[in-house]
Protein backbone atom coordinates (compact mmCIF):
# COMPACT_ATOMS: atom_id res chain seq x y z
CA UNK A 1 0.00 0.00 0.00
CA UNK A 2 1.51 3.37 -0.92
CA UNK A 3 1.70 6.50 1.26
CA UNK A 4 -1.52 8.12 0.02
CA UNK A 5 -3.51 4.91 0.40
CA UNK A 6 -2.20 4.46 3.93
CA UNK A 7 -3.09 8.08 4.74
CA UNK A 8 -6.63 7.64 3.38
CA UNK A 9 -6.93 4.52 5.55
CA UNK A 10 -6.06 6.58 8.65
CA UNK A 11 -2.39 5.63 9.14
CA UNK A 12 -0.84 8.32 11.38
CA UNK A 13 2.71 7.59 10.18
CA UNK A 14 1.65 8.17 6.58
CA UNK A 15 0.00 11.42 7.66
CA UNK A 16 3.23 12.48 9.39
CA UNK A 17 5.21 11.77 6.20
CA UNK A 18 2.79 13.88 4.15
CA UNK A 19 2.85 16.61 6.80
CA UNK A 20 6.64 16.81 6.74
CA UNK A 21 6.67 16.73 2.95
CA UNK A 22 4.12 19.51 2.48
CA UNK A 23 4.21 21.73 5.59
CA UNK A 24 6.67 24.23 4.06
CA UNK A 25 4.73 24.52 0.83
CA UNK A 26 1.41 24.96 2.64
CA UNK A 27 2.93 27.56 4.97
CA UNK A 28 4.33 29.60 2.07
CA UNK A 29 1.00 29.52 0.23
CA UNK A 30 -0.95 30.67 3.28
CA UNK A 31 1.68 33.31 3.99
CA UNK A 32 1.02 34.77 0.54
CA UNK A 33 -2.60 35.33 1.53
CA UNK A 34 -2.46 36.33 5.21
CA UNK A 35 1.05 37.94 5.21
CA UNK A 36 1.74 37.15 8.88
CA UNK A 37 4.06 34.35 9.94
CA UNK A 38 2.38 33.43 13.26
CA UNK A 39 -1.06 33.31 11.61
CA UNK A 40 0.35 31.32 8.69
CA UNK A 41 1.79 28.74 11.13
CA UNK A 42 -1.56 28.39 12.92
CA UNK A 43 -3.40 28.05 9.63
CA UNK A 44 -0.90 25.47 8.36
CA UNK A 45 -1.78 23.26 11.33
CA UNK A 46 -5.48 24.00 10.77
CA UNK A 47 -5.09 22.97 7.11
CA UNK A 48 -3.56 19.62 7.98
CA UNK A 49 -6.18 19.12 10.70
CA UNK A 50 -8.91 19.60 8.09
CA UNK A 51 -7.03 17.30 5.72
CA UNK A 52 -6.77 14.58 8.37
CA UNK A 53 -10.47 14.84 9.23
CA UNK A 54 -11.43 14.62 5.54
CA UNK A 55 -9.04 11.75 4.74
CA UNK A 56 -11.91 9.37 3.96
CA UNK A 57 -13.00 11.67 1.11
CA UNK A 58 -9.52 11.70 -0.45
CA UNK A 59 -8.98 9.58 -3.54
CA UNK A 60 -5.44 8.09 -3.36
CA UNK A 61 -5.55 7.08 -7.03
CA UNK A 62 -5.02 10.76 -7.94
CA UNK A 63 -1.34 10.21 -7.19
CA UNK A 64 -0.81 13.44 -5.25
CA UNK A 65 -2.49 15.38 -2.50
CA UNK A 66 -0.80 18.71 -3.35
CA UNK A 67 -3.69 20.44 -5.20
CA UNK A 68 -6.25 19.18 -2.64
CA UNK A 69 -4.09 20.44 0.21
CA UNK A 70 -3.63 23.83 -1.44
CA UNK A 71 -7.38 24.17 -1.82
CA UNK A 72 -7.92 23.33 1.85
CA UNK A 73 -5.18 25.84 2.77
CA UNK A 74 -6.82 28.56 0.67
CA UNK A 75 -10.19 27.93 2.33
CA UNK A 76 -8.59 28.02 5.78
CA UNK A 77 -6.88 31.33 4.94
CA UNK A 78 -10.10 32.84 3.54
CA UNK A 79 -12.04 31.69 6.62
CA UNK A 80 -9.44 33.44 8.76
CA UNK A 81 -9.71 36.65 6.71
CA UNK A 82 -13.52 36.56 7.03
CA UNK A 83 -13.34 36.06 10.80
CA UNK A 84 -10.76 38.76 11.36
CA UNK A 85 -12.00 41.26 8.79
CA UNK A 86 -13.62 43.62 11.28
CA UNK A 87 -11.07 43.02 14.01
CA UNK A 88 -7.59 42.99 12.53
CA UNK A 89 -6.48 44.98 9.50
CA UNK A 90 -3.98 43.43 7.08
CA UNK A 91 -0.67 43.20 9.00
CA UNK A 92 1.86 45.87 8.28
CA UNK A 93 4.96 44.10 9.60
CA UNK A 94 6.87 43.86 6.36
CA UNK A 95 9.68 46.05 5.11
CA UNK A 96 8.95 47.99 1.95
CA UNK A 97 11.42 47.89 -0.91
CA UNK A 98 10.91 51.41 -2.26
CA UNK A 99 13.44 54.14 -1.66
CA UNK A 100 11.23 57.01 -0.58
CA UNK A 101 11.36 59.26 2.47
CA UNK A 102 10.16 57.04 5.36
CA UNK A 103 7.19 59.21 6.36
CA UNK A 104 5.87 59.38 2.81
CA UNK A 105 6.50 55.67 2.32
CA UNK A 106 4.74 54.75 5.55
CA UNK A 107 1.76 56.93 4.68
CA UNK A 108 1.50 55.38 1.21
CA UNK A 109 1.71 51.87 2.62
CA UNK A 110 -0.94 52.73 5.22
CA UNK A 111 -3.27 53.95 2.46
CA UNK A 112 -2.66 50.82 0.38
CA UNK A 113 -3.25 48.51 3.35
CA UNK A 114 -6.42 50.43 4.15
CA UNK A 115 -7.62 50.06 0.56
CA UNK A 116 -6.82 46.32 0.54
CA UNK A 117 -8.68 45.95 3.81
CA UNK A 118 -11.82 47.26 2.14
CA UNK A 119 -11.79 44.36 -0.32
CA UNK A 120 -13.76 41.23 0.50
CA UNK A 121 -11.49 38.30 1.49
CA UNK A 122 -11.79 36.47 -1.87
CA UNK A 123 -10.97 39.66 -3.81
CA UNK A 124 -8.13 40.57 -1.46
CA UNK A 125 -6.63 37.10 -1.81
CA UNK A 126 -6.80 37.23 -5.61
CA UNK A 127 -5.25 40.71 -5.78
CA UNK A 128 -2.41 39.79 -3.40
CA UNK A 129 -1.71 36.51 -5.19
CA UNK A 130 -1.89 37.94 -8.70
CA UNK A 131 -0.25 41.34 -8.23
CA UNK A 132 2.13 41.07 -5.28
CA UNK A 133 3.09 37.39 -5.41
CA UNK A 134 2.73 37.19 -9.22
CA UNK A 135 1.03 33.80 -9.12
CA UNK A 136 -0.42 32.63 -12.41
CA UNK A 137 -4.19 32.81 -12.90
CA UNK A 138 -4.10 29.05 -13.41
CA UNK A 139 -2.58 28.43 -9.95
CA UNK A 140 -4.98 30.88 -8.31
CA UNK A 141 -7.94 29.26 -10.07
CA UNK A 142 -6.91 25.78 -8.89
CA UNK A 143 -6.40 26.95 -5.32
CA UNK A 144 -9.78 28.67 -5.18
CA UNK A 145 -11.60 25.95 -7.08
CA UNK A 146 -12.85 28.39 -9.73
CA UNK A 147 -12.16 28.92 -13.44
CA UNK A 148 -9.41 31.18 -14.79
CA UNK A 149 -12.13 33.44 -16.19
CA UNK A 150 -13.63 33.76 -12.72
CA UNK A 151 -10.17 34.77 -11.46
CA UNK A 152 -10.00 37.46 -14.19
CA UNK A 153 -13.41 38.76 -13.12
CA UNK A 154 -12.29 38.90 -9.48
CA UNK A 155 -9.09 40.72 -10.46
CA UNK A 156 -11.15 43.24 -12.45
CA UNK A 157 -13.58 43.79 -9.58
CA UNK A 158 -10.76 43.98 -7.03
CA UNK A 159 -8.84 46.53 -9.10
CA UNK A 160 -11.96 48.66 -9.48
CA UNK A 161 -12.62 48.74 -5.72
CA UNK A 162 -8.92 49.27 -4.98
CA UNK A 163 -8.57 52.18 -7.39
CA UNK A 164 -11.68 53.82 -6.01
CA UNK A 165 -10.44 53.53 -2.41
CA UNK A 166 -6.96 54.77 -3.32
CA UNK A 167 -8.37 57.64 -5.33
CA UNK A 168 -10.56 58.67 -2.37
CA UNK A 169 -7.41 58.60 -0.21
CA UNK A 170 -5.59 60.82 -2.71
CA UNK A 171 -3.32 58.07 -4.07
CA UNK A 172 -3.34 57.84 -7.84
CA UNK A 173 -2.18 54.61 -9.45
Amino acid sequence: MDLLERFAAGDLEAFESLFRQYQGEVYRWIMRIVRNSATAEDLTVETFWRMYRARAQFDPTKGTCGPWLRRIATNAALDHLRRSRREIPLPDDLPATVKQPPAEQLELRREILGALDKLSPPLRAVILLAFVEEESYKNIAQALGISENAVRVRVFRGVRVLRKSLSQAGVHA
Partner: protein
Amino acid sequence: MNQPELDDLKKLLKDSLHPVGGDKLQRDLWPTMLRRLDQPAFHVPWWDWTLLAAATALLLFFPGMIPALLYHL
Protein backbone atom coordinates in the same frame (compact mmCIF):
# COMPACT_ATOMS: atom_id res chain seq x y z
CA MET B 1 -8.87 49.94 -17.30
CA ASN B 2 -6.02 49.64 -19.79
CA GLN B 3 -2.80 47.65 -19.41
CA PRO B 4 -0.48 50.58 -18.44
CA GLU B 5 -2.91 51.57 -15.65
CA LEU B 6 -3.01 47.97 -14.48
CA ASP B 7 0.79 47.81 -14.52
CA ASP B 8 1.00 51.05 -12.51
CA LEU B 9 -1.30 49.64 -9.85
CA LYS B 10 0.68 46.39 -9.80
CA LYS B 11 3.93 48.33 -9.34
CA LEU B 12 2.42 50.44 -6.58
CA LEU B 13 1.31 47.32 -4.71
CA LYS B 14 4.61 45.52 -5.22
CA ASP B 15 6.62 48.54 -4.10
CA SER B 16 4.59 48.85 -0.92
CA LEU B 17 4.07 45.19 -0.03
CA HIS B 18 6.98 42.98 -0.93
CA PRO B 19 6.29 39.36 -1.94
CA VAL B 20 6.37 36.94 1.00
CA GLY B 21 5.93 33.72 -0.94
CA GLY B 22 9.63 32.87 -0.60
CA ASP B 23 9.62 33.14 3.21
CA LYS B 24 10.61 29.84 4.79
CA LEU B 25 8.90 28.08 7.66
CA GLN B 26 11.08 28.71 10.73
CA ARG B 27 10.20 25.61 12.76
CA ASP B 28 8.80 22.11 12.47
CA LEU B 29 5.04 22.24 13.11
CA TRP B 30 4.59 18.49 13.66
CA PRO B 31 4.66 18.75 17.52
CA THR B 32 1.89 21.39 17.31
CA MET B 33 -0.01 19.15 14.92
CA LEU B 34 0.22 16.22 17.34
CA ARG B 35 -1.16 18.37 20.17
CA ARG B 36 -4.02 19.41 17.88
CA LEU B 37 -4.76 15.80 17.02
CA ASP B 38 -4.91 14.95 20.72
CA GLN B 39 -7.57 17.58 21.37
CA PRO B 40 -11.19 16.44 21.38
CA ALA B 41 -12.82 16.98 17.99
CA PHE B 42 -15.66 19.05 19.39
CA HIS B 43 -15.21 21.34 22.34
CA VAL B 44 -18.07 23.32 23.87
CA PRO B 45 -16.84 26.33 25.89
CA TRP B 46 -17.79 26.33 29.59
CA TRP B 47 -19.84 29.49 29.25
CA ASP B 48 -22.08 27.78 26.69
CA TRP B 49 -22.81 25.05 29.23
CA THR B 50 -23.50 27.76 31.85
CA LEU B 51 -25.89 29.53 29.49
CA LEU B 52 -27.66 26.27 28.69
CA ALA B 53 -27.97 25.41 32.41
CA ALA B 54 -29.35 28.88 33.19
CA ALA B 55 -31.88 28.68 30.34
CA THR B 56 -33.00 25.19 31.43
CA ALA B 57 -33.37 26.31 35.06
CA LEU B 58 -35.36 29.36 33.97
CA LEU B 59 -37.76 27.23 31.92
CA LEU B 60 -38.14 24.71 34.79
CA PHE B 61 -38.97 27.38 37.35
CA PHE B 62 -41.11 29.48 34.99
CA PRO B 63 -42.77 27.06 32.53
CA GLY B 64 -45.22 29.81 31.57
CA MET B 65 -42.39 31.32 29.52
CA ILE B 66 -42.32 28.36 27.11
CA PRO B 67 -45.31 29.44 24.93
CA ALA B 68 -43.96 33.02 24.82
CA LEU B 69 -40.53 31.71 23.84
CA LEU B 70 -41.97 29.47 21.12
CA TYR B 71 -44.01 32.39 19.81
CA HIS B 72 -40.88 34.50 19.39
CA LEU B 73 -38.81 31.75 17.72
